[in-house]
């Protein structure tokens, strides 16, 4: 979230799209109700289903899964056409005025630079027109046809209400009534927020979709403002924190994973330390060397010296274009290229796409370690044929599966201390309430014991790659079960010479004098103690920032980009809602996303970006600098905007024998998968309350489709995709409206997740159905909007 849960109460308009917070984040949703009570805020819900959130919305508009970019693009068009955007904000805080190189263009579904043979883009033409200093040229009047503003206007001119309605499936009137409410926040004294979740991210074009939302919010002047922002609700308690700590392509703190061509630390720094693109750009990432060096120092301690490039060599390096994401490595596993697999609390058989392929992949492993609270479908995948009855009847017998499996019992949240980072980026310290049951152990002990034992083997026997392994620091007081307080102190960072905790990332150095495990967490455990355990109730701004409660990254800042809430002189756009104030010498209020004592005119508001302003036009993404509507990989219609380039040309789509795609003739309906409020993911089927309250898998079927098929509520139906099938009773409802797209009636079928073949209550795994199609930037699978058939049993 750019803002945070408590801040949602400051909104005048709440757009819920690609999420269903009343269902999945009920407690977070209380701030929407608060906004309504306090500010008479309007709640607009755009969703394929009239869901729990819609039940209390001021306006609900139905849509076809996977057409969000068309909808939001339409709003961009509407905003520009009716001049409802926040003019001063757009000029001051975005790259609207930046000039783009000649040669950039968009035609027939492709941006300039498409290489039909390699099936990717040469992004050279997507760049700014730079002057001799390497700064982007600008036209403050926004009139130059090569400026971002004019190019954007041209790009979205096609997204008229009629065109949007034709793609999305609602009526043009419905679209316009939503647009009118959303665009009412373009005024300086109004703000609007967006709450989204996996309904936006689980597409083959999801990152572009978030980009569209960001563009819309920038045009309306809603970024950095209380009650504004683009807010991902996030689905797991520490999904934010675990992402902060790295993923396949990131080191902790969003430092990029080294590539094979970055042979030395200098190479890496050169590649990833950006240069300012405007004279007034603070370009905070210029400090990347300090962050990276401090991380290497934390990782490799005494082995990291200036002479050896802080042992940078130890880090694993990916090939230049290689992808080690979810889809890729499970595909590799399926091809037999992976021998071992370790999982800490994840259940890929249930939560990964294309379960039939997942089961085959796991059977090719030599060994697998699962660390869990409960038995999972993944841990017991080798018995899927029996436990999963009809769904995996052709799967191997256990005796044909040679994977050795270890299922290790872990302590649950209540039996461990440490921090979770919520979607507001708040790090909240929790304490252990009781010991784990039986022989279960806390995860830190499990990982430490394995790690230390492996190292012992290398010390004793030697072996390949011993150095990176032995160089890694593990100097905890109790190495076999490190105290999480000690680990938290390590991620905050310390001065290596004095041993003192650093107060913030501003103190990190690139000379090896500081060590810091995760630079964005600097400030979380300072010399003053554990900031994350704070329980202060004060809210001096009255905006719900609660600066003394827990600790928020970065730097305890509660609203990201808050400098953009004020104009060039530092005066808040809305005097009633100013998160930060400039008093002539320094900024007060929220921790300014700016230099604390720099004059408002010194820098651009977006200090993390080389531009110094926010990017309406972003060349960073793979499929184009402006988001374009592309159909899901499996779609019931060809893209009405450009039929020959229907879905995202850059989408990651696996094409193995177990990755079939379905055709609309055989699979005429659009399916979406989602959560229900009674359950949490695939865990609570073990919990009596959830298993009781929602014990049965079901399929939501539009009433009209049910009538066509002679299906009554409770009738058993089978949903089938090109990958697999699920069966359950039909919940026949008018809450899923049939849609008119290109003159054709489109039905959508809703499939809740949560069931599996292990638990107090059981049911089919819905990922039997989902395709091996992913977003190319993030690697997120397309769970919303794939094709299925439906039959009455």
């Amino acid at each position, binding site marked *: 979230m750019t803002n945070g849960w408590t801040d949602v109460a400051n909104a005048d308009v709440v757009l819920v799209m690609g999420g269903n917070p009343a269902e999945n984040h009920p407690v977070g949703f209380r701030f929407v109700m608060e906004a309504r009570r306090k500010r008479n805020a309007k709640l607009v819900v755009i969703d394929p289903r009239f869901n*729990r959130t819609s039940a209390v919305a001021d306006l609900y508009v139905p849509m076809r899964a996977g057409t969000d970019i068309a909808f939001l693009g339409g709003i961009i068009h509407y905003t520009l056409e009716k001049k409802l955007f926040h003019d001063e904000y757009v000029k001051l805080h975005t790259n609207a005025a930046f000039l783009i190189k000649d040669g950039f263009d968009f035609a027939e579904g492709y941006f300039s630079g498409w290489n039909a043979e390699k099936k990717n883009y040469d992004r050279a033409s997507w760049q700014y027109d730079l002057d001799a200093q390497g700064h982007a040229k600008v036209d403050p009047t926004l009139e130059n046809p090569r400026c971002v503003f004019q190019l954007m206007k041209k790009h979205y001119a096609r997204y008229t209400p009629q065109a949007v309605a034709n793609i999305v499936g609602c009526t043009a009137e419905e679209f316009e009534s939503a647009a009118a409410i959303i665009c009412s926040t373009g005024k300086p004294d109004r703000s609007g927020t967006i709450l989204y979740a996996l309904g936006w991210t689980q597409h083959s074009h999801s990152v572009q979709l978030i980009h569209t939302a960001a563009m819309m919010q920038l045009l309306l002047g809603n970024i950095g403002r209380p009650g504004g922002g683009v807010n991902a609700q996030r689905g797991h308690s520490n999904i934010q924190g675990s992402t902060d700590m790295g993923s396949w392509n990131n080191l902790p703190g969003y430092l990029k994973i080294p590539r094979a061509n970055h042979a030395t630390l200098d190479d890496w720094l050169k590649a990833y330390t950006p240069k300012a693109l405007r004279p007034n750009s603070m370009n905070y990432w210029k400090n990347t060397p300090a962050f990276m060096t401090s991380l290497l120092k934390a990782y490799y301690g005494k082995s990291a010296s200036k002479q050896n490039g802080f042992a940078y060599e130890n880090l694993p390096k990916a090939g230049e274009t290689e992808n080690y994401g979810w889809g890729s490595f499970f595909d590799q596993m399926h091809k037999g290229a992976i021998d071992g697999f370790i999982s800490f609390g994840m259940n890929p058989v249930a939560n990964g796409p294309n379960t039939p392929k997942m089961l085959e992949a796991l059977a090719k492993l030599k060994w697998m370690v699962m660390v869990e609270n409960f038995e999972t479908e993944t841990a017991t995948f080798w018995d899927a044929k029996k436990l999963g009855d009809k769904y995996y009847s052709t799967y191997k017998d256990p005796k044909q599966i040679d994977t050795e499996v270890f299922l290790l019992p872990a302590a649950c949240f209540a039996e461990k201390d440490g921090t979770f980072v919520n979607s507001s980026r708040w790090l909240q310290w929790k304490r252990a309430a009781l010991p784990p049951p039986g022989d279960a152990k806390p995860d830190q002990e499990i990982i430490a014991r394995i790690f230390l034992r492996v190292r012992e083997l290398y010390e004793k026997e030697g072996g390949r790659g011993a150095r990176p392994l032995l160089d890694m620091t593990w100097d905890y007081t109790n190495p076999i079960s490190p105290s999480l307080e000690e680990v938290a102190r390590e991620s905050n960072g310390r001065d290596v010479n004095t041993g003192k905790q650093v107060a913030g990332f501003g103190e990190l150095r690139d000379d090896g004098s500081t060590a810091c495990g995760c630079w964005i967490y600097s400030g979380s455990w300072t010399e003053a103690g554990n900031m994350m355990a704070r329980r202060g109730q004060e809210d001096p701004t009255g905006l719900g920032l609660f600066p003394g409660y827990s600790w928020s990254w970065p730097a305890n800042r509660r609203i990201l980009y808050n400098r953009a809430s004020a104009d060039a002189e530092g005066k808040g756009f809305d005097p009633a809602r100013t998160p930060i104030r400039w008093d002539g010498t320094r900024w007060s209020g929220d921790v300014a996303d700016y230099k604390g004592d720099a004059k408002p005119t010194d820098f651009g508001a977006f200090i993390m970006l080389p531009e110094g302003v926010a990017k309406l036009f972003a060349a960073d993404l793979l499929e184009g600098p402006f988001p374009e509507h592309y159909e899901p990989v499996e779609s019931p219609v060809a893209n009405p905007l450009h039929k020959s380039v229907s879905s995202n040309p850059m989408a990651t789509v696996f094409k193995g024998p177990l990755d079939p795609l379905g055709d609309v003739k055989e699979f005429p309906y659009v399916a979406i998968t989602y959560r229900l409020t009674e359950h949490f993911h695939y865990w609570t089927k073990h919990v009596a309350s959830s298993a009781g309250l929602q014990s049965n898998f079901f399929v939501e079927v539009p009433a009209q489709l049910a009538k066509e098929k002679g299906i009554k509520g409770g009738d058993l139906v089978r949903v089938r995709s090109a990958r697999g099938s699920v069966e359950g009773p039909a919940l026949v*409802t008018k809450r899923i409206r049939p849609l008119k797209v290109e003159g054709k009636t489109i039905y959508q079928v809703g499939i809740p997740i949560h069931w599996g073949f292990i638990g107090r209550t059981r049911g089919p795994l819905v990922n039997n159905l989902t395709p091996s199609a992913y977003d190319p930037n993030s690697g997120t699978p397309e769970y919303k909007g794939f094709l299925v058939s439906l039959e009455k049993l």
Partner: protein
Amino acid sequence: MQTVAKLIDTTLCIGCKACEVACQEWNDQEFTMGVFNNTYQTMPDLAPNFWNLIKFNELEIDGAQSWLMAKYQCMHCADAGCIAACPAPGAIMRLPNGIVDFAQDHCIGCGYCITGCPFDVPRLCAKTKKVYKCSLCSDRVAVGLEPSCIKACPTSCLTFGSRDDLKFAADKRAADLRKSGFQQAGVYDGPGVGGTNVIYVLKHADRPTDYGLPKNPSIPWTVQLWKGPVKLLGNLVFVGGLLAAFVHFIRVGPKESHDE
């Protein structure tokens, strides 16, 4: 002592079922398996071990898709039908704070309260032969805590306080709703049973049955007739009969004996 009450602003209810589970948890009730009935409401009805149910109702109101959700539990009536009907002394008490609480060890399981209740709330447990219902967490309230459902409610659809305060808040909320275009918005608090200590704000107060609430609830007339005129008449018959016999015996005496 002030009367306590619960306000249910149904316009804020998202059917999250937190109140249902909070109630189960606090009262250490066993969770039972729900059923599928073509609705998100998987618990069909209240049960001896399930005292708090959100009813879901999908319908179209004035052509617009609606999904009404409302919590359903004991209403803690001022003029409580269960108390009126209950024969067992001490089994149902109306605490001075207005809570109508069942004391199961005094309950004889006759089930009259079920029939007496205009809201059809109490449930007889086949195993223990006792009747159960929401106690408004009298144990929590007694030590200054709010009822468990109210504490859990994420959207502040449920609030707890003195009845007067909540009635005021409810009236205001309904007036606000009418002002913002919901002509039929209103307060539902059972005047027919002397006022309930559970107060609802309904967007469509003209159609309470769509929320699963009875229209114009009152103690059933048969119960009223029984507890009123019939009981009076009966007492007259019983006492009068004995009295008449006594007077007859004194004044007239026995018949002449033909018994040697």
